[in-house]
């Protein structure tokens, strides 16, 4: 647009100015290489070094170790690996070996992956439905109150997720405040079992990830030009049409960012299904943890991790494709414009 175009031109002319005026400057008599002026937006590659070290040491190296382990054999006592190449960890994903040595198809792990997908999907949708009105409400407050309200959204980050998840054990258990309140007003006689159900897992997941949906949508909504909504009303649109065809397409980048930030970590979440699901509604991360712990099968745990990684990458690619396609459809309106 106009403003950014102008800014670009100014910086362009600024850089070309300095380029042409530099040789005439008195400093140019000293060797050019030593005195070279750094242009705006250009940094030395040294500046990237801490990030590079971090990436290699803490992301790429562990990933590489996991990848290698996933092709090795199980150690005798289950801790560590035996350095012998095998594909067993990957065949174990689909087949189980009976004691007699025969192989049969076993959908247990596929089921768990499907489960994880399902929980992550429900979590994303519930978070989206809750976050859009909250984010819009935040964005329409007077600017001086917005800062405090956004600050309030981040309050959960102040304590450990573990402690916050434990607190949901207290909230959801049979003698907890919810059951107590429902009994108090005489709505129920027997407590409703909520803890250690899939419901509790989803509640925990939604609670954990909601801020990650609210904040990016808020960031988009805050930049929304409410004069566009006025223009839509003026052209004869009712409230819902304005929301659907003008407001939501404008917060689309925030919605996409929110979905990625919620869906992907939710897919690999461990605490909520472990503590609130009671092990009955395991997700893939719980199974991975079990392989490195109780089950003592590191190569299989590594293979599951690799699988989760591949799935995550595929999901990201699908998100990118859908987002691109939807941005072309955005003008036509409709819910598909949201993605």
């Amino acid at each position: 647009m106009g403003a950014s175009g102008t800014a670009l031109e100014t910086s362009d002319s600024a850089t070309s100015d300095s380029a042409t005026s530099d040789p005439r400057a008195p400093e140019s008599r000293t060797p050019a290489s030593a005195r070279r002026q750094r242009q705006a937006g250009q940094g030395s590659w040294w500046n990237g070094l801490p990030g590079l070290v971090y990436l290699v040491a803490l992301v790429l190296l562990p990933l590489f170790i996991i990848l290698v382990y996933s092709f090795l054999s199980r150690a005798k006592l289950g801790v560590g690996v035996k350095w012998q190449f095998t594909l067993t960890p990957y065949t174990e994903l689909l087949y189980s070996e009976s004691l007699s040595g025969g192989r049969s198809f076993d959908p247990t792990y596929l089921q768990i992956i499907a489960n994880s997908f399902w929980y992550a999907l429900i979590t994303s949708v519930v978070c989206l439905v809750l976050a859009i009105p909250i984010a819009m409400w935040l964005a329409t407050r007077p600017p001086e109150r917005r800062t405090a309200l956004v600050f309030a959204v981040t309050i959960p980050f102040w304590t450990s997720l573990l402690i916050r998840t434990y607190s949901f054990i207290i909230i959801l258990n049979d003698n907890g405040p919810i059951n107590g309140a429902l009994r108090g007003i005489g709505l129920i006689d027997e407590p409703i079992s909520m803890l250690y159900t899939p419901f509790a897992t989803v509640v925990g997941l939604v609670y954990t990830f909601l801020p990650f949906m609210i904040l990016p949508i808020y960031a988009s909504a805050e930049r929304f030009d409410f004069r566009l909504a006025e223009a839509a009303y003026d052209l004869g649109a009712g409230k819902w049409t304005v929301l659907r065809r003008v407001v939501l397409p404008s917060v689309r980048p925030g919605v996409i960012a929110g979905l990625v930030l919620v869906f992907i970590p939710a897919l690999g979440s461990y605490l909520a299904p472990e503590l609130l699901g009671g092990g009955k509604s395991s997700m893939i991360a719980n199974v991975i943890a079990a392989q490195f712990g109780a089950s003592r099968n590191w190569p299989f745990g590594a293979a599951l991790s690799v699988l989760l990684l591949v799935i995550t990458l595929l999901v990201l690619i699908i998100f990118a494709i859908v987002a691109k396609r939807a941005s072309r459809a955005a003008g036509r309106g409709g819910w598909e414009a949201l993605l």
Partner: protein
Amino acid sequence: MDASAPALSVRDVTKTFQTPEGGQVHALDSVSLDIADGSFMVLLGPSGCGKTTLLRCIAGLEAPDSGQIDLRGQRIDDMPVWRRRVNTVFQSYALFPHMTVAQNIAFGLQMDKVPSAAIKRKVEASLEMVHLSGLGSRKPSQLSGGQQQRVALARALAKEPEVLLLDEPLSALDLKLRRGMQSELKRLQRETSITFVLVTHDQDEAMAMGDQVAVFNAGRIVQVGEPREVYLRPNSRFVADFIGEANVLTGRLDTYGLVIESLGLVPRDRLLDGTLLPAGPVHVAVRPENVTLDRDPVGTAKVTDVSYVGGDIRVEVQTASLTIVSRVPSQRVAPPSIGDRVSVSFAVESLCVVAD
């Protein structure tokens, strides 16, 4: 509908805003205005005078505290925005950035449930009307400011509103483009015979475009009339000052005539409405082009500034107590120079007695 009835009638509309400090601002103070069907009305005034608030009240984007607004005899001030047969061209254009130009124009028609074949036709016709044929598939961000302006215009006109409201539509354009768009808007208004209401703070623009001009000051309409009438016969010191340039002189009206300090006496019968005006102190407005300067070694005024304004020479002179501005076409006379002594005279018919 009978042709003489106004398209839009505003009655005693008042709107008060709370300031952040807790005070109150009368954005509109009992404003009444009739706008004739098919006319081009310009609401003119300095910023913060309430002209945009009135426009927003008509559009329905702002609710008046009291008063009534009728569109072709039907009360609309209690109607929701989307039901009013009135459309707005916004100062910021407010084009939907995620839609193409054609989708922007189609949006309002879709709201009216126009069949899609007809929408397609109307979008084409609207684009042609504003000379943007072939740009329908562009996004607004790919257009220049002037082109965006035309899209905003096409989008509002495609709905064939009873009244088109324009909120400082040309303020973001550069001078040359603005001139072009002014005549373009007038052409569109003539061709569509839709009633246009345009808000501006630019008096040249108001004079150039309006069939009628309503001058606002501090939440009130101070004068309504044809541009020529408002220019030649301002009814107040504010209007005389705001529209064009004016020399406002203080004088006193007595039974014989008007006495202007250090300049002379004008008999009452030579003043417009001179016999009706009550005696007392008054202000008198004189346009610079009605001030004649003659070189005169014993003149009472001394030239203090000479400048070229378009094809005119603007000369400022200083008398014992006054600064007076004169304006003459530059070809007509050799310009005086600073320091020259001159005598000052006015055409009596051009004097205009104004309220304070």
